[in-house]
């Protein structure tokens, strides 16, 4: 139960990883404990720096929406995504059409 898993090419040892995370966690805790202890909660030290502007009361005005995530990635791959999204038409007959097409292609490959 506690052995390593041999993959044929290497091995997997979950306990080595858990030990690594425990050591890393301990180091993080140590570094954190070296921080200043005279920090005053509720004072200006607590304030969020929002480009020198007043911080909006509702988080809605602060948050980064999901549609902004990976903007650079999707812009860089726009031609790829245009094709990919265009291929997902949402039309039921297309769903059936792709199934028939794949069946025909596989039939050609196997029967010929």
């Amino acid at each position, binding site marked *: 139960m506690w052995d390593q898993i041999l*993959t044929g*090419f290497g091995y997997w040892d979950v306990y080595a990883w858990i030990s690594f995370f425990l050591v890393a966690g301990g180091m993080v805790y140590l570094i954190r404990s070296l921080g200043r202890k005279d920090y005053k909660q509720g004072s200006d030290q607590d304030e969020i720096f929002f480009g020198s502007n007043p911080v909006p009361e509702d988080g809605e005005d602060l948050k980064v929406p999901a549609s902004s995530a990976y903007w650079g990635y999707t812009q860089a791959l726009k031609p790829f995504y245009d094709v990919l999204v265009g291929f997902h038409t949402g039309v039921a007959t297309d*769903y059936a059409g792709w199934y028939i097409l794949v069946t025909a292609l596989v039939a050609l490959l196997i029967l010929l």
Partner: protein
Amino acid sequence: MSWQVHLPALLLAVPLLGAFLAPLTALGGKGLRNTWFVLVSAAFTMIAFLLWTRVGSTGTAIYVMGGQGWNLALPSGMSIPVRILMEIDAFSAFMVLLSAVAALAGAVFSIAYMDRFSGLEKFVALYFLMVTGMFGMEITGDFFNFFVFLEISSVASFGLVAFWRDRGEALEAAFKYMLVSTLGALMVLVAVAFLYSKYNVVNMATLGKVIEWGIVEKTALVLFLTALAMKCGAVPMHMWMPDAYAEAPAGVTCALIAVSQASLYGLFRVTYTIFGAFMGSPVIPWVIIVLGVLSMFIGVSMAVIQKEVGRLIAYHSVSQVGYMLLGFGVGLLALSDARAMAEYGFTALKGGVYHIVNYTMYKGLLFLSAGALYYATGCRNLNDMGGLGRKMPKTMALFMIAAAAIAGLPPFNGFVSKLFLYESTFAVHPILAVFAMVTSVLTLASFVKIFQTAFLGPALQKFEGVREVPGTMLLGMSVLGVAILALSLFPTWSVNHLVEPAAKALVDQASYIGAVFSASVTGGGL
């Protein structure tokens, strides 16, 4: 004779009884209905567990229905089995156990999740019918009954996907699912008819023994392969999956994952057990590998750009099915070459089998987490969410476990199955491993997106009243969360007791065939 010889029959009878009595439980009110829902689910999970342990200790189980005796596969004077025959080897038992756990988690979660809606006795009845069909697909020993069980699970699934019938999207998703699913089931029936027309038999073991490699058989294989690949969501036949998974109630989606795995089981039973002897030609294995690579890459690419949490996770289902197809495809490629099987084929197969376990557990938990977010906030769109980690810390913790596991972050279980797949597929061609790794990176990216936009960020005023979901929903999620942690912490036990016996059973065609005929002679079986 132990009562446990009847476990295969009980596995079908218990959920079927649960389905037919569910409308009556409505007479006893909500409490009786919910108790019935959980009790029957717990009962079939226990039966699945007992069956798995029994098959592990006594070998392949045979159960004959409608015959002179439960273990008489071949009555005197008969040269082929003609009764309804259940055959459960280690691979079947493994699938049944996973499916039962997913269905139990979905049922427990659904108690509170569905409480606000009416018509729940119909919901429970359809749920149990779906489970019956799923179990039937995984334990049946003949193709015609495979088709019947496929239809039972599909028809019940259509009703469950469309359960929120006031939502046009749910009805549309169910209609699309019904259209392609019925087309696929029809092709399965035509494939069975092709084989029956030539061999006069539908029993899987007998077909595996006598089958030849002619036009009829090749046509049947094509029809089986594409229909079952479509049912498990392989690209480019996957489009029904994001629609159906995102629109079905979360508990149902958790069980639907196991239903799609039953189709995957059928695909591998056909290719390995029935047609395994003809896999010297690399065409079929490469078709499965290409479908796997396409599913992995296109599924995850589409997931990254989704804004609706259910659809995002559903596209990941397509991607994860790709990993399994890749592993099983590489295993199939090595099936007729003992050296290749020893070098990389069996490792790939173990990776595929291990990924089935992992996928069923973490994907189920991810869908339940998405359901919890919807239950608490009424939102499906990630753009509308934020800061929920403060309000729903337990849901967030369970989501994090599942997200880390699916992304293959060490030390979680998802990494182990992916490690098997990376290393073995690299031996076939490095580009396969590259696709698998890129898919894993994009998987992590998309779950970071959900985590960051739904759980992190500033608190939103509109969610001030949001509270953690009820205990039964957390319990349903915890069943899967604990399973993921156990699989992660005890990988050696998982591989030795769950994965390897299933993988060995799948490549041991002779044992599957021999079990039916030895049961006929000796009256053996379970």
